[in-house]
């Protein structure tokens, strides 16, 4: 059994995990004049995250979501930070990749909370709308 890093008093930890997403940049580009909102397409999502700040009971991450429409007719970019507040194990659970093709919970949460904005952005650009529900890792071997 691993030696715990510390024994945190209950008063400094929260009862519920807190996830706060703050956006710094939102960008949408229509890459082709032939783009059609009804065209059959799929979006590829490139996620990049890095640790910004870690204090007891809190982890702040920088993130960049790059949604590229395949075929390449649109690109949507969201840059921001996500603050995860909770006990160490709870925060660790959020950033741990899920089984098989499931992304870490934090990626799902960011996508979920920014989806409305992506939808409006794609609608305004008259490009295909990104799908809302699940976000699965691309199986490269398939």
């Amino acid at each position, binding site marked *: 059994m691993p030696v715990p890093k510390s024994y945190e008093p209950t008063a400094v930890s929260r009862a519920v995990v807190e996830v706060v997403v703050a956006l710094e940049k939102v960008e949408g580009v229509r890459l082709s004049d032939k783009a059609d909102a009804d065209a059959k397409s799929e979006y590829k999502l490139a996620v990049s995250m*890095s640790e910004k700040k870690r204090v007891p009971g809190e982890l702040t991450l920088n993130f960049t979501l790059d949604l590229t429409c395949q075929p390449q007719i649109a690109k949507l970019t969201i840059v921001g930070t996500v603050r995860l507040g909770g006990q160490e194990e709870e925060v660790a659970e959020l950033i741990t990749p899920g089984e098989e093709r499931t992304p870490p919970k934090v990626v799902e949460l960011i996508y979920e909370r920014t989806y409305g904005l992506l939808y409006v952005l794609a609608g305004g650009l008259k490009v295909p709308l990104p799908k809302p529900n699940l976000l699965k890792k691309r199986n490269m071997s398939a």
Partner: protein
Amino acid sequence: MIPLSKQKPAALSPEPKHAPEPETGEKKKPVPTIQGGVRMVSGMVWFSSLADVKAYIQGLLDMYRFENEKATEFVAAMYRALAEQGSHAKNANSWTKVGSILVNSDDPDRGKMEAALQLLTDMKPLVARTEEALTNFTRLEDISARPDSAFVLCLRYGLPERLIVEENARTEKFSLTDEYVTV
């Protein structure tokens, strides 16, 4: 500071939850009550840098100062309210010991004020010793800790008492680069 009457009901309720007064004679003015307070915790908190330790102690100090001020205002308001009512102590000792707990059912307002005064007495050294810890923090910064060191701050009844330096203990910084598809 927010006046007592304007503070949130959860923290400070201007209407004491007493049994209703009988409708005879002059109405008794409400006496404020205090709720909450600081949980003086004991435990160990892990940090990846000394700057974070300092920020944490500063946070503790801010909280203790706020609570101290709140208790001071409460006691002052109690004094004023009791003076306006012309209340006098019914009994020099209105406390009864039941097991390990002192019970006061004779003079609740004065009982609350006595308890608040005791809280205030407890709070003052807490503020002073946390201030001292922060003032002397520059000496802690002289500790020759390796860049990969982590720090464990030990709190005892809310006071920062010990700092443990762990070398090679800092966890890797989280980063993720991956590709997904929306479905």
